[in-house]
């Protein structure tokens, strides 16, 4: 069983996937940020490869991409960061990237390098299953389901993917929202009806309330990205401390002892 399956199968309740742009705000500080995310209780890491053209990301994560690139973080640095994490943690690691670095290196070699570094999953934001040319590797290919994705396509995506289904909470790009849409539970139910894969909800999870709304709607995991990037941007003095606070706060939102709150519409 790989690390992603093991994490979902451990019976620890909904997972928190902490997402950060690798190398943000600098490779050194990013090391400390990642360590802090793990120590604060993240169940899985999603590391984003810094990129120049980021069409699926909102302004907060875009600025994180720009900081990481300005600090000189490239793909080799990202793989090094993963290798370094593996010296002290077995946390599942999903690499999120835009398609270009993957096709420039070659999909097969990219997946092999990622596996060699210690990665477990690969989410290529702008590479739908139809454009994947190397589907079978030891790396789980993770795909996104959008609010506009029809059921027939969810089946196809589920059949092509591994690890978990990444369900986007609402139309648009990454970013925090006050509440998640009211139809989220129905969409999670549909995904679970057509797939054996766990469902992780992302885009819009940035507070204990939204995290709670997602797990109350049936999510097996919540993915927190913009809130972490914002913490890094807002607390440049000690980004590690700031991101730890975000993880602890959101972890509390999905904790089993949390008092139920009304689901936002």
């Amino acid at each position: 069983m790989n690390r992603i399956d093991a994490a979902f199968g451990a019976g620890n309740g909904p997972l928190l996937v902490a997402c950060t742009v690798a190398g943000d705000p600098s490779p050194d500080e990013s090391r400390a940020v990642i360590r802090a995310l793990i120590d604060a209780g993240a169940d899985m890491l999603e590391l984003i490869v810094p990129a120049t053209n980021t069409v699926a990301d909102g302004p907060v994560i875009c600025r994180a991409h720009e900081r990481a690139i300005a600090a000189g973080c490239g793909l080799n640095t990202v793989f090094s960061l993963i290798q370094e994490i593996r010296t002290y943690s077995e946390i599942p690691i999903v690499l999120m990237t835009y398609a270009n670095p993957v096709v420039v290196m070659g999909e097969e070699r990219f997946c092999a390098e990622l596996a060699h570094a210690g990665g477990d999953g690969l989410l290529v934001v702008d590479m739908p299953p139809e454009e994947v040319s190397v589907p079978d590797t030891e790396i789980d290919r993770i795909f996104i389901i959008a609010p506009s994705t029809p059921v027939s396509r969810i089946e196809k995506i589920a059949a092509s993917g591994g690890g978990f289904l990444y369900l986007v909470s609402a139309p648009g790009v990454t970013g925090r929202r006050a509440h998640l849409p009211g139809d989220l539970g129905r969409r999670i139910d549909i995904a679970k009806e057509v797939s054996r894969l766990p469902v992780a909800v992302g885009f819009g999870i940035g507070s204990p309330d939204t995290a709670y709304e997602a797990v109350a709607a049936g999510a097996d995991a919540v993915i927190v990205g913009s809130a972490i990037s914002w913490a890094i941007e807002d607390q440049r003095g000690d980004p590690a401390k700031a991101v730890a606070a975000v993880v602890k706060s959101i972890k509390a939102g999905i904790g089993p002892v949390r008092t139920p709150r009304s689901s936002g519409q």
Partner: protein
Amino acid sequence: MTPGRFGIYGGCYAPEILLSPLEDLCLSYAAFREDEQAMDELSLLLSRYAGRETPLYRCRNLGKETGVSICLKREDLLHGGAHKINNTLGQALLAEKSGKKRLIAETGAGQHGVATAMAGAVLGLQVEVFMGSLDMQRQAQNVARMELLGATVTPVSTGSGTLSDAVDEALRNWAATAQDSHYLIGSCVGPHPFPEIVRDFQSVIGRELSIQSVSQHGRLPDAVVACVGGGSNAIGTFSPLINDSVRLVGAEAGGVGSDPGSHGASLCSGTPGILHGAFTSVLQDDEGQISFTHSISAGLDYPGVGPEHAFLRDAGRVEYMTVSDSEAIAAFRLLSRTEGIIPALESAHAVAAALRLADDMESGSMIAVTLSGRGDKDLATVLEAGL
């Protein structure tokens, strides 16, 4: 060839959230092409609103010393001053027939933004244009025109503040608003089906050129030249001529040198990669990071190119060459003084390439150049370079 592919190039590398709108667009475009009434309506708009057909003008003076005839396909005479209106009227009508209420567009030099604002105004659609903040400074007059035409111009200050960043922002906006908005992409770039749609709407240039050349000169030109940024005027010019024995030449932005960041020559210097949804020839580093670009012409300042151009380059059907900023400015001045036509700086690249070709062609040869737009918008830039 699979749908959306030009050889190995093209495809649909888009976030999942855009796939459903793209699939809807494929279906609505297929229906639109079969809709005779819609085609008639487009024809009327192109002729009576935009000013087609545009003349094929044989230069009286340019090229005289080489003995080569240079003809200009006068897209600069269209309403708005550029070929862009062919595409924007087509896509805006497609959007209207598909029930969309709003157009999203990106613009570099401002010509596409202006053409989208015009198409939106005439068809009663809301328009929001995303434009790099640097381009807004370079093309302040076009910003004012768009606003006068009722469009909202939204500055994009991420990245280099140029066209590439504006495309990103337009795609982001479309991801959130696709239900009632059509993304009216300005060139033959982007995920399938955009490269095909834009090529089809622009191919009126090459069809007319072909007919006019035969009727006026009794034959097709020996060579046809067009400038290539994203490549829409070039693919519109070339595509109807692909199966004819005509030399086809694309002129790219050579900028101020061959170092990364100093030019915009995606076909001459790029490598295979993905930009804005298509696998094509891209200016990038070894790890796939997109390079900054430079061109004196905002419309050519783009690190990618339409995927069909990459295919035509590999197939050896179209030759692509670079033209430097200074060569383009020299051609800008020359055409103004010899023919009384002030070309867009983009088009000046094509004129410069044609003059280079003319030097090596036999006397009596004929070159047709697509003059993609007029140069009023570029006067300040050229004045700055010293007239």
